[in-house]
């Protein structure tokens, strides 16, 4: 479809219309999404409300953290299917360690009351190690990222389910979470009527840190070099193996933090928490301009990608679109985003 458009453009002599069409092709995905958003607003004008904004922001927060992890490794020409399952593992473990001591169905009935930061760090270390294992499989065993993380996705789900389905109560959703832990995620600042969730602040802090790493550190530059031209990077003395290992580890740590936040935000966790989150995150990255050919991507793009996706998600549900139809729309958006992205890199023969 776009091939036909660009070919037609060749016939038009006016430079301006050429540029306009080029801009439209380059930004086609944003235009489509904007159109979707406008449709939603036209159908249901009360979609535009502070309350909806708050909901969208707080739902987007954990997703931004996950997407920033995945974004980094997509830049290195990688991908990560295990992200959602790692989020689930982190959610279950952190929830199991942070149940209210008064709650009747605790997984560890005799566990003393823990301050919530401890378990959060603990799960981040666990998923960090799992991320490192992903990095090891990819950079040292040379398994392609898709297959490597497909394997770890299944393994992590197995580990999580084994942990989850254990005595004394078996496979029960882990609820009755510690008040402080839940307030950590569900609390908000009251800004003259607008309730700004804490969780949004955390996402903002993580975003800032990742921005620093991507743009201001040696490690960040190496990520882009490895993704843009691995051979040139190696010849210039960049340690390819180390860079890949670290990028997957960093992603793992982010999944762990996101998982704990997700448990606290929802107030409960099961072995299916986080299921398919990786697909949303990958889709958001792609929509936000992170290229699967490697070497290209910005923090701003990832954040915008997640927000747009969340707005559409929330908006479609808000105007009562059939959930099955929502899947179809989302799938189409992803395919279109990649098809358009690819056009920029096709070599003409």
């Amino acid at each position, binding site marked *: 479809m776009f091939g036909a458009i660009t070919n037609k453009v060749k016939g038009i002599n006016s430079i301006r219309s050429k540029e306009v069409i080029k801009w439209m092709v380059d930004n086609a995905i944003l235009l489509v999404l904007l159109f979707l958003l406008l449709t939603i607003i036209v159908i249901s004008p009360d979609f535009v409300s502070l309350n909806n904004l708050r909901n969208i922001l707080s739902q987007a927060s954990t997703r931004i953290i996950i997407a920033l992890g995945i974004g980094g490794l997509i830049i290195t020409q990688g991908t990560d299917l295990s992200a959602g399952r790692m989020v689930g593992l982190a959610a279950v473990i952190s929830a199991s360690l942070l149940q209210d001591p008064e709650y009747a169905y605790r997984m560890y009935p005799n566990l003393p009351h823990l301050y919530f930061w401890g378990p959060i760090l603990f799960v981040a270390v666990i998923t960090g190690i799992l991320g490192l294992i992903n990095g090891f499989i990819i950079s040292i065993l040379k398994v392609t990222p898709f297959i490597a993380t497909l394997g770890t996705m299944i393994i992590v789900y197995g580990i999580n389910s084994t942990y989850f389905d254990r005595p004394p109560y078996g496979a029960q959703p882990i609820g009755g979470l510690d008040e402080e832990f839940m307030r950590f995620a569900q609390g908000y600042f009251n800004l003259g009527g607008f309730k700004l969730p804490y969780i949004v602040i955390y996402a903002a802090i993580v975003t800032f840190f990742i921005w620093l790493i991507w743009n201001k550190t040696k490690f960040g530059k190496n990520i*882009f070099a490895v993704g*843009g*031209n691995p051979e040139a990077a190696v010849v*210039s*003395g960049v340690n390819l193996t180390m860079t890949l290992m670290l990028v997957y580890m960093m992603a793992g740590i982010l999944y762990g933090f996101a998982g704990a936040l997700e448990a606290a935000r929802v107030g409960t966790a099961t072995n299916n928490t986080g299921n398919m989150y990786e697909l949303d995150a990958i889709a958001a990255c792609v929509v936000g301009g992170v290229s699967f050919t490697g*070497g290209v991507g910005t923090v701003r793009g990832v954040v915008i990608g997640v927000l747009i996706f969340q707005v559409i998600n929330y908006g479609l549900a808000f105007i009562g679109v059939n959930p099955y139809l929502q899947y179809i729309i989302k799938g189409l958006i992803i395919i279109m985003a990649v098809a358009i992205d690819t056009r920029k890199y096709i070599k*003409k*023969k």
Partner: protein
Amino acid sequence: MQNIKVESNSTYLLRMKSISKEFPGVKALDNVQLEVRPGTVHALMGENGAGKSTLMKCLFGIYHADCGEIYFDGKKVSFTSTRQALDNGVSMVHQELNQVRQRNIMDNIWLGRYPNKFLFIDEEKMYKDTKKIFEELDIQLDPKAKVEKLSVSEMQMVEIAKAVSYNSKIIVMDEPTSSLTEKEVNHLFKIIRALRDKGVGIIYISHKMEEILQISDEVTVMRDGKWIATKPANELTTDIIISLMVGRDLTNRFPEKTNVPGDTILKVESLTAAYKPSIEEVSFDLRKGEILGIAGLVGSKRTDILETIFGVRQRKSGKIEINGKKVKNRDPKEAIKNGFAMVTEERRSTGIFGILDINFNSIIANLDDYFGMTQLVNEDKCEKDTKWVVDSMSVKTPSQKTKISSLSGGNQQKVILGRWLLTEPDVLMLDEPTRGIDVGAKYEIYQLIINLANRGKGIIMISSEMPELIGVTDRILVMSNGRVAGIVDTKATTQEEIMRLSAKFL
């Protein structure tokens, strides 16, 4: 060998002494020497395949020389990687520029050794240092500009600046002007002179005689992996260089030519490719039983002619006529149906299916023949045809089920030739058919090509090896910078004439 160890350090910056390198079946370098003085431009010349790149690869440790010694700055060295050479002040500006295109200029220059301030990168220092080098070399580029937005000549300047940033004392430039305009060449020469005046030794690899005579102080000529001469540039002329480059005998390397050209089979008129840079206004004709060679320098777009005829590359204008019938050849499938066949240059990446067997590799271009009404493969016919390929091309293989990648290059090429003959083409296009094949097997391939011409096929053959063209073809079309510089009769031409033609549109 005499034991005189008094190296006069001041005269030579780099001395490569009696370097030899042998690959299975080929002596790529035979006792070659190269001596570069500081503050000079030293041109390294020779035909395609003379051993220039192999010699450079030995310098950079990409290949390990079988024997010989390298002295750099008075010390004996033996680099094990490009990176190590770079750290020691020997760098290379490649023909294919190796850059992270998505990043900006200074990110590329300091890649792998970014200056740090605490935890973060010191962008300011990077910017200033880059700016300083640019000023020294009179390069007007913004260090923060993205590399993919630069022109080829600008990218090259960035590469040179990178070499300078490593404080390189020797900079090798491989065909640096192959895609530059005249103005850009002049700027490049200005930069080269600035480097030379700072005492840097420059090894300048190029085919362009006028340029060599203009920029270099000394010239070393290689031929067939051997050192031929090193002379001051001011004692040389284009004619002397050419005769040094080509002077050799051609006895018994080629089978007897028995084919007799007949009626015209293929006519190509004003063929121009859709996307530049590529071929422009290419016209020629081909006769039955004729072998037409295509000569030209690397980058002269010889392959593009075949690709455009075969429908791999999009055509902007031009006419193709086979057996008097006008054809479109919009894609390879259509071209095959119209009686064309093409053996590609990169056998490994676009020729063989390496992990599959000879049977599969033989029948793959002719699949339609093996499926009847049932749409199930006719195994007997496959086997019969593969047997024909193996027998008629005399492929040496234990069985049809042998993986093709376990055969020698020559035998792989025979299978590919056989594959295309199964499609019963009228016109067979061969791109560097003897590349990477050892000398003995080359003879067999030549014989096969001549036999095919005897059977009335029209054959087009691209080659970078001049003797091969002279020894096998009937006429030679010389390409220069995407255009036809001339079509010459092989019997009446000389290597010197072809050389001159191939530089016609540079």
